[in-house]
């Protein structure tokens, strides 16, 4: 079946080193991303909207899909698709191999110590809900605290609130600084004998701030407290090593890392997962069922009740391979240059204010304009072919902290260019022209 997986292998896996002839130059060459070749992998990017080239700058909301991902999913459905883990027939075996192969790819991608620590979920939201529901109900006691930060996405606030209302636990919130950063001490000083879980973002989806996860995790671990990291905004943009990060649980979505929707990952430490009760009950997650009682599988299948998102998991595996092949250091360097350029171009626009100026920042620029509401800005730049987000970015408490109801957010990805930053900046001139 090896020929079937060829489509999922990036066609220019070693393109970044192809131009090097001396090992001494290899590193700098590897740090240069050939953006035009990257863009060639994305059919959707090559189109015009309202007669203007599309500039897709809404990557923090969701990213576009490269051909190898589309091909892997198409190939699955066209050639070997069947339900996994139960068929004696050939297609079921092949499907299972690819589905479990995707798990291995993801495990490698995040440097998980064990493949069976990778649980497929519907997305990061479900991954966090899984931890809150399973770990939370089994291990958190009334009066204990879950510690989050003020910049969390609603998906890392609401599951804990639901648990609070069920269990009588408390939600503690570490503050965010004026510049959008989170000081490690601000989180660490809230850790106390009642803390039962620390749940934090790696990168803020609304402001781009990178959190000092390792320092916070070290402090939490010194008190024996597990740490859940929401890695949605980090995983497509930098090399993530869950072990080096110090996470105990790591959640992310497929669709933000150039993979499909409907699939995400919860990585969890094996010794924790094996102590956790099932999240949902059903087929696939049991070893035996009678009307009196049922027994359950261990991780990962014990947390994957029902027929999983097979094709989507295969697509996610292809996305992990595709990203890996591009050298995530080069990707991070490319996106950092875009951040710097965008910050410079946008800062020069009169009446525009950038929110979130943390020193350590991912390629997300959140801003408001004196002249117009974020929503009006969104409509105007849309007509210039620029896709950005206007709103509260599912982080309403964070918006409130700055007295904002909404911002405009441009978020960059592997395929964005400086010309697209120019296209946005030019479109913002139209806002000034119209609104004066």
């Amino acid at each position, binding site marked *: 079946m090896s020929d079937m997986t060829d489509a999922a292998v990036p066609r220019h896996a070693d393109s970044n080193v192809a131009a090097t002839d001396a090992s001494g130059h290899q590193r700098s060459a590897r740090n240069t991303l050939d953006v035009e070749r990257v863009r060639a992998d994305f059919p959707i990017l090559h189109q015009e909207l*309202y*007669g*203007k080239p599309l500039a897709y700058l809404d990557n923090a909301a969701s990213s576009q899909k490269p051909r190898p991902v589309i091909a892997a999913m198409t190939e699955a459905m066209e050639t070997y698709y069947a339900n996994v883990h139960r068929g004696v027939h050939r297609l079921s075996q092949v499907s299972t191999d690819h589905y479990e192969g995707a798990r291995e790819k993801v495990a490698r991608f995040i440097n998980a110590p064990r493949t069976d620590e990778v649980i497929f979920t519907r997305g990061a939201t479900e991954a966090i809900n899984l931890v809150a529901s399973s770990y939370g109900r089994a291990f958190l006691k009334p009066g204990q605290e879950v510690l989050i930060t003020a910049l969390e996405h609603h998906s890392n606030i609401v599951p804990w609130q639901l648990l609070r209302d069920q269990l009588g636990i408390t939600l503690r919130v570490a503050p965010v600084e004026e510049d959008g950063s989170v000081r490690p001490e601000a989180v660490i000083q809230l850790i106390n004998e009642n803390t039962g879980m620390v749940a934090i973002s790696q990168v803020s989806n609304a402001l781009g701030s990178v959190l000092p996860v390792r320092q916070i995790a070290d402090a939490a671990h010194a008190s024996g407290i597990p740490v859940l990291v929401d890695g949605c905004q980090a995983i497509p943009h930098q090399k993530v090593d869950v072990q080096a990060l110090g996470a105990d649980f790591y959640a992310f979505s497929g669709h933000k890392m150039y993979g499909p929707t409907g699939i995400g990952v919860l990585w969890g430490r094996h010794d924790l997962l094996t102590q956790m009760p099932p999240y949902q009950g059903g087929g696939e997650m049991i070893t035996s069922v009678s009307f009196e009682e049922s027994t359950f599988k261990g991780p990962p299948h014990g947390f994957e009740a029902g027929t999983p998102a097979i094709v989507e998991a295969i697509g996610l595996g292809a996305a992990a391979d595709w990203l890996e092949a591009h050298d995530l250091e080069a990707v991070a360097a490319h996106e950092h240059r875009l951040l710097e350029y965008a910050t410079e171009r946008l800062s020069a626009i009169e009446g525009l204010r950038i929110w979130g100026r943390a020193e350590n920042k991912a390629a997300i620029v959140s801003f408001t304009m004196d002249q*117009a*509401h*974020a*929503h*009006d800005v969104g*409509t*105007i730049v849309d*007509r*210039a072919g620029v896709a950005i987000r*206007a*709103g*509260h970015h599912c982080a*309403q408490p964070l*918006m409130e902290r700055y007295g904002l*109801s*909404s911002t405009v957010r441009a978020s960059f990805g592997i395929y964005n260019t400086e010309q697209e930053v120019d296209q946005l900046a030019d479109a913002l001139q*139209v806002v000034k*022209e*119209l*609104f*004066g």
Partner: protein
Amino acid sequence: MMDELRELYQDVILDHGKKPRNFGGLEGYNHLAQGHNPMCGDTLVVYLKVDDDNVIQGVSFKGKGCAISVASASMMTEILKGKPVAEAETLFNAFHDMCTQDDPQLPEGVDEDAMERLQVLSGVREFPVRVKCATLAWHTMEAAVHGNEEISTE
């Protein structure tokens, strides 16, 4: 590009958006509702003072919003003052049709002058995601009249 945008952001809209009329609370109001647009997080509060004959004696609004939603709310308050509640509801239906249909039929008995003034907002037809911005104030007014204190355009 500029033509379509100017069609949406006509001078009347920009003017009402920057200098909303009847902005703030309303003394002696007897109906109130809060309208919420979950897409952008914006919130409007509409205050109404309706007399015993079901005539709107006063109307105001407050809140934050985009140029379209603020302008629409501002114009609504100017238009509704002095109108019977039933007429306000007829206007709402006609306005809603105007924002969503290419060739809407005006309902019988609707205030044609008012509809002509509201015509400046019909540009949202070309911007479907902005229809909710234009109709938020009217939905909120309707909720206030019927005693529902909170509505969402979702």
